[in-house]
């Protein structure tokens, strides 16, 4: 069980949280001009990185607020927690592969 530090409630068990998938996926500025392949890229295709990942998490059974987390997908270590809407922290991805 992971212990995740909710930015509002403090450290809580993983079972209280819901992972919302990859973070920082930008909605296309002009959706009408996109080709099918580009839409598929935006809607379905994710990087599934081994190492440093940036994810959205929701404290579903606590304060119900969203936040971002940087996580090592190999060791499951949570490297950073930062608010929604802010840029990812500067972490060297080569360290986490």
């Amino acid at each position, binding site marked *: 069980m992971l212990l995740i530090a909710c930015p509002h409630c403090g450290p809580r*068990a993983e079972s209280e949280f819901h992972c919302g998938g990859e973070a920082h996926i930008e909605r296309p500025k002009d959706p009408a001009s996109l080709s099918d392949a580009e839409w598929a890229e935006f809607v379905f295709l994710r990087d599934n990185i081994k190492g440093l990942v940036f994810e959205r998490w929701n404290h579903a059974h606590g*304060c119900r607020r969203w936040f971002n987390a940087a996580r090592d997908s190999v060791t499951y270590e949570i490297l950073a927690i930062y608010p929604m809407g802010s840029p990812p922290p500067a972490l060297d991805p080569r360290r986490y592969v």
Partner: protein
Amino acid sequence: MIETYLRQSALDHLGLAGHSTAAPTEAGVQLSEKPLPVAVNLRGDSGDAAFVEAVREALGLALPTLPNTATTGEGLALLWLGPDEWLAMQHDAAAFAEAQLATKLRKALDGLHAAVTEMGESLCCLSLAGAQARAVLAKGCPLDLHPRAFGGSGHCAQSLLAKAAVTLLQVSDAPAFELYVRRSFADYLWRWLEDAAREYGVAVVRP
């Protein structure tokens, strides 16, 4: 507003009043169901001094801004649910008290960026007390319930108990806890609590 005659606990079918005891008990755990609480959900910006002051004026209670804390006063409790969300709870109140409480808050918060929502009969309040109360909760709740971490009376948290979403409020250092649970989970959670507490000796007591 909910008519008095319609207010019925989700545990009515268990007939708890019939087999609860008022006598002092040696049981490690005392369980009871409190009468349906009056609950009003409050949203707003705790960074806005006008909002904090308006709530204090309307309820006579300070808004808890520290995470996982609650402030309690005359029959009224204000629970922190999130950075901009609180739950006002009133016990032993008539059914119309909910509308009164919500109206009072709405009037006080008029013109401010805030929301007041009546919770109706959505929540049941189970009370769990006794020397082994923590041990029972620890069987199904991932929270650290040690007094060092779950800081005594006035500490509250939303979490899971036996996979049901609950709001936990410590009301006494004895220890005694109040569990607020959605009514559709109340029957399941009551039976789970009775079963989990069996090994310590469990008494159903009058609220």
